[in-house]
């Protein structure tokens, strides 16, 4: 095998497996069926082994038939345990797939001499042998067999997702809506499970029974963190499968380890990256949003404090110590500095006062606050209970909402505590 073609076929096999699994995995994650995927990939093992034993070869067709039968048996078992025998759902899944997997392992070891299959293949897969596992048509060498299998499955999955895009979308997000527009959610469910079984079997030889689970779930879950749009999720999920295959191959070379295992580790790494850096649902994004929110609240409070002070005591400047919110000193400090930087407040002789723009901002906020207090009072809250909710609502009230509240109130000049509602 040449320097280029050997690695190329291996990476291609991994990429095809990753992309096939990624496409379906996105749906599994969305539909909260990840564990069913897990169970299914374990449960098909005895079917594959029995097919090997009966056919005596690695023909694809018997393998698929055996696996499909086992997949159906597993599904039926889980349903029977759960619905008819009233075993808890998680236990049902646990019992069914461990039993079938155990059966598969026992069969493999019991007939170790007769099958070209061993425990290692079940665990690690044999992706490294991809270039040497050739498919022949008579005398013609058509190329590596796993590529043909995985390529076909990828094409099938892609066609499945494209053709039934709308059906899958509706059935995944709104089963009732699906029913009303004539899409059978049950049919979609079974088609998806069928596709997952076929993909699992195809990927089994290359990456082993347990690592298939990773390929199914991890890219889908990672993509789910990046977007709310199904198309984006599907594309990203498949893409991550491909990236993991490429990176995994080279890492396996560096670590001198199983290629399939390395691919999964890369997937885990990509998931961790998504977890941290995904813009909207990532941990970092959430943290930044939270900080910005508390900063906004702190800034608003500083402006309000200065305005109230000016209004009541005719004192227009406060010292740092008076201005800083002692409960959140750090955020409050940053808020004051940012307000100064923007020129909304000014400092003279260590005392802060509102700038020209600051007055406008602060007046708007105070108007929000007092309008909300009046409104809350009008809908039945006693006057001594309206301050705190108004305090929370004042930050999120834009011009339109403010005027709507104004319109909903009778023509009043003061809030429930008798304070003037400023114009602005």
């Amino acid at each position, binding site marked *: 095998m040449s320097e280029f073609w050997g690695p190329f076929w291996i990476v291609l096999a991994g990429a095809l497996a990753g992309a096939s699994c990624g496409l379906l995995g996105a749906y599994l994650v969305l539909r909260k069926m990840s564990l069913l995927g*897990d169970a299914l990939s374990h449960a098909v093992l005895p079917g594959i082994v029995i097919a090997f034993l009966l056919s005596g070869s690695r023909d694809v067709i018997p393998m698929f038939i055996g696996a499909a039968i086992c997949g159906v048996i597993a599904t039926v078992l889980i349903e029977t345990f759960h619905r008819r025998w009233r075993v808890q759902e998680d236990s049902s899944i646990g019992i069914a797939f461990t039993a079938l997997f*155990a059966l598969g392992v026992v069969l493999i070891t019991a007939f170790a001499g007769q099958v070209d299959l061993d425990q290692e293949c079940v665990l690690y897969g044999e992706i490294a042998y991809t270039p040497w596992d050739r498919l022949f048509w008579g005398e013609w060498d058509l190329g590596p067999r796993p590529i043909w299998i995985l390529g076909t499955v990828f094409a099938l999955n892609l066609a499945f997702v494209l053709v039934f895009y709308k059906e899958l979308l509706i059935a995944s997000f709104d089963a009732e809506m699906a029913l009303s527009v004539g899409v059978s959610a049950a049919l979609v469910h079974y088609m998806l499970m069928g596709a997952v079984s076929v993909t699992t079997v195809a990927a089994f030889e290359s990456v082993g029974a347990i*690592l298939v689970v990773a390929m199914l779930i991890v890219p889908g879950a990672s993509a789910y963190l990046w977007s709310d749009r199904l198309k984006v999720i599907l594309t990203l999920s498949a893409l991550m499968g491909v990236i993991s295959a490429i990176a995994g191959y080279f890492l396996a070379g560096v670590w001198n380890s199983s290629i399939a295992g390395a691919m999964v580790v890369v997937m885990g790494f990509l998931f961790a990256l998504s*977890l941290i850096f995904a813009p909207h649902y990532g941990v970092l994004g959430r943290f930044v949003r939270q900080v910005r929110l508390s900063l906004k609240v702190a800034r608003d409070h500083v402006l309000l404090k200065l305005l109230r002070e000016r209004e009541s005591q005719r004192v227009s400047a406060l010292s740092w110590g008076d201005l800083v919110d002692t409960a959140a000193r750090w955020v409050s400090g940053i808020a004051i500095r940012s307000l100064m930087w923007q020129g909304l407040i000014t400092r003279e002789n260590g005392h802060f006062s509102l700038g020209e723009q600051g007055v406008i901002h602060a007046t708007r906020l105070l108007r929000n606050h007092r309008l909300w207090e009046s409104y809350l009072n009008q809908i039945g809250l006693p006057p001594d209970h309206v301050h705190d909710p108004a305090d929370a609502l004042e930050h999120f009230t834009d011009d339109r909402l403010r005027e709507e509240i104004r319109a909903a109130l009778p023509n009043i000049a003061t809030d429930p505590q008798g304070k003037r509602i400023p114009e602005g």
Partner: protein
Amino acid sequence: MIWDATFQLVLLGSLLIGATSGTLGAFAVLRRRSLLGDALAHAALPGVALAFLWTQSKALPVLLLGATVSGVVGVLIIEAIVNYTRIKADAALGIVLSVFFGGGIVLLTHIQQSEVGNQSGLDKFLFGQAASIVRADLYVMCIVSVLVMIAVFLFYKEFKGLIFDAEFLSALGFSQRVVDLLLMGLIVLTVMVGLQAVGVILIAAMLITPAAAARFWTDRLHVMVLVSGILGALCGAMGVGLSALAPRIPTGPVMVLVATAAFLVSVLIAPRRGVLARRMRLRANALRENGQHFLRAYLALQTQDKQKVVLVDLAGELQLPLYRVRRLAKRLARDGWVSLHNGACSLTELGHKEADFVVKSHQLWEYYLVYRSILEEDHVDRPADEVEHILTPEIIEQLETILAEEDIDIVGDIHKAHSGYRRTGKDE
């Protein structure tokens, strides 16, 4: 024979493993933590490999320590993912399980393919090899098992509260979180003890399957814990015994298959909850129902002058094929309710009594439904029909008392004119 000292050691070890995982499995399953055990076990694999890489030692305590650490890290990551992101629990479980396992595979193959050492001792952790248990390992297992058992004994009440009424537990002043953590900790220990003999991939089954089987035998927690523990021990012992017959086969899968067989047997033959018992109960109910329908049909067809009713007429009334009516009549004759005369039948004394009871329960129930304004008069026949068969004489008596206490007097069939209930006594 195989009854040598080594085998006894191995047998004892697997008995312990089975008993521990069975006992704790009862709590794990009821608390719906069974699949978390699965994730935990898979997540232990990289820990085993790392412990070996760092220490170059294959001593069980060292490897188990590594396994425990990485298992716990895995579970913490699951919790964090569920709490802080939009990923749901099932996906989080699957992700941690498979990625950790993938990492474990990378490390194992790395150890295998590089010259650092002989990895043959490590791959037993995948599918389990009970034969590799040595005396020192047994001591470790004993200590951990005893610890787990003591903890279960001491905190039985807390666990029970956690499973059945977590709010009550908090009301008693226990932190639900602490008890939950304690249970998780014990699950970790149990999984670790079983790793050597059952392996990371299938140890979860030893937690789940005996417990699920025990659930069929009883509704009481302490009985279930006991049964589950004993079942687990038996499965462990039998698994080792069976796999000793064919030494090539790893012990884990064999134990799991034995446990699955025990589960299936329990499902079949357990009293009350078992499939056979349920089927028999349903059949007995059906027989009773048919018999009662027969009696009511008889009363409907019977006239003053003619006490005998022809079976063909009964078949028409009951809308059943004749052969089934004949079979029913024969059965009722055996019970002494009817006497048969050549294609016709008549009620015996006992049969009349039973028929009266059936009619009365039907009527009483109808009145009750109407009186309580649950249903209108023209809607009560069918529901009453369904329920009359399960009314026992005691319930009938109670219905009578209720209606009597409310001063309700029953006159005749509710569907006929000049009938109905009327209030007697003070109100009028």
